[in-house]
């Protein structure tokens, strides 16, 4: 399988504090890759670097064989789309409008209505609330909307930042089901998570980060079995 995202020896800092100290990882086509770690391990910083919100101080990030652009809209155009932490849906736009913002950069406008129907097929709840304001949805529904909005951009790689944060356990399971479902349709997934157990269950490959470094990696299964590893680094 060919490489989609390749992060090589990336360093980044906030002021003088080194948040990333030489991180390398990769995501292949069709894969679910989990990046795990406790608070402050540098997971979100890594995501900010990949999505051009933050500058790297060293190393390279390549998407489909090319260095990533420093303009967020070019990343989205190329197919690198983020489902941000805390959902960040547009509270004052309707569900339908939120989805249309997601599709805003697409060149194939004629396929947008079809994809809208597809997304409503995955999330029937959103169809029911199509004309409601995003801010009126429940937390779980907002997470679904954020995912649906990402799908509308037709990404090749979707990056999730803590999708289970602040959600009830039953909703968390639904979110992970959906992630598996869209992956099965061919979309590569990068999953930044604190909920290691759940993430490892669906991940093909996983990296464990601690204080700005990758300290372990392997297939989801391997890491799940290796309980000492998980408890040592993730504190579970």
């Amino acid at each position, binding site marked *: 399988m060919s490489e989609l995202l390749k992060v090589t020896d990336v360093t980044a800092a906030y002021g003088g504090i080194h948040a990333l100290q030489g991180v390398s990882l990769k995501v292949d086509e069709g894969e679910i890759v989990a990046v795990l770690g406790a608070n402050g391990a540098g997971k979100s910083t890594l995501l900010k670097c990949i999505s051009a*919100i933050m500058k790297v101080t060293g190393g390279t990030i390549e998407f489909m064989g090319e260095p990533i652009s420093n303009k967020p809209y070019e990343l989205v*155009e190329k197919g690198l789309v983020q489902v*941000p932490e805390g959902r960040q849906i547009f*509270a*004052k736009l309707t569900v339908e409008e939120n989805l249309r*913002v997601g599709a*805003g950069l697409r060149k194939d406008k004629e396929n947008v209505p079809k994809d809208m129907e597809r997304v409503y097929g995955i999330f029937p709840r959103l169809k029911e609330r199509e004309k409601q304001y995003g*801010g009126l*949805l429940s937390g779980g529904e907002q997470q679904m909307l954020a995912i649906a909005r990402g799908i509308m951009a037709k990404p090749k790689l979707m990056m999730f930042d803590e999708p289970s944060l602040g959600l009830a356990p039953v909703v968390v399971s639904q979110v992970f089901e959906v992630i598996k479902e869209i992956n099965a349709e061919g979309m590569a997934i990068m999953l930044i998570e604190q909920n290691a157990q759940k993430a490892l269950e669906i991940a093909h490959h996983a990296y464990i980060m601690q204080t700005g470094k990758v300290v372990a990696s392997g297939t989801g299964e391997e890491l799940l079995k290796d309980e000492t590893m998980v408890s040592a680094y993730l504190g579970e």
Partner: protein
Amino acid sequence: MFFQQLITGISVGGIYALLATGYSLIYSLLDFSNWSHGEFAMIGAYTAIVFSTVVKAPFALAALAGVAGGALVSFLCERFAYRRIRRNGAPNMFLMIAAMGLSNVFQQASNLIFTGQYRSYPFQLPVSTVKVGSAYIGVLDVVSLLITAVVLMALIYMINKTQFGLNVRAIANNAGAAKVLGIKVDSNIAKVFLLAGSLAGVAGVLYGMKYNVFPTMGNVGLKAFIASVIGGLGSVPGAIVGAMLLGVLETFVSAYISSSLRDFFSFALLIVLLLVKPSGLFGVDVQDKA
């Protein structure tokens, strides 16, 4: 008499609305009140004067030049002043202070260039009236009202039905998320300044037709600002309703009480409204649940 005043009031309100929507659009994106906005109307009006007297262009062309003039200066203010201040990460207060400074510069500059003299367009503007029932309505008011209605309807369509409008509303709602989703934030802000400036240009030309053109005419922006606060800052429909209310109120006060009390009533309405409903008429916020 009543009907006649009502039409005049709506026509005045229409001019306020053209400016008030500009305040609202910019406030919704950048959270600051663009105090130089009224001057774009003045600049538009003078551009039309220059085109019709110096270049001797026909009125329609001069009016279009006026609209373009307002749009251009508004765009330049964003590009070379506000954007730089934003990039420096300065608080929004700095934007407002810069806008006040620009407003002063534009007023003084037009005073130097054109002197304080009142100028009018070198065209026979329709001064006739049409009789509707028992009322006489000025043709100029009707023309101004129609132009305003068409422009405002186009604006509402643009905001609610086009991808550009959707992007602008998304940025207004959550600029960070909009950026992550690939919306070009700065370029959309620049387009909004062009749009707001051209609306101000329309207002300036219409205002100039009604009351002549003079360096301090941009102060009408203050009334438009009141209107947009009444309607709820940041809301385009609110700005239109607030502007109509204010225009009609002022006209009725002038007609039935005294024109010297006009501004007293405008500000009184603002104060009462802020006491009763601080977020303005349309300033209802949908609460974030996250």
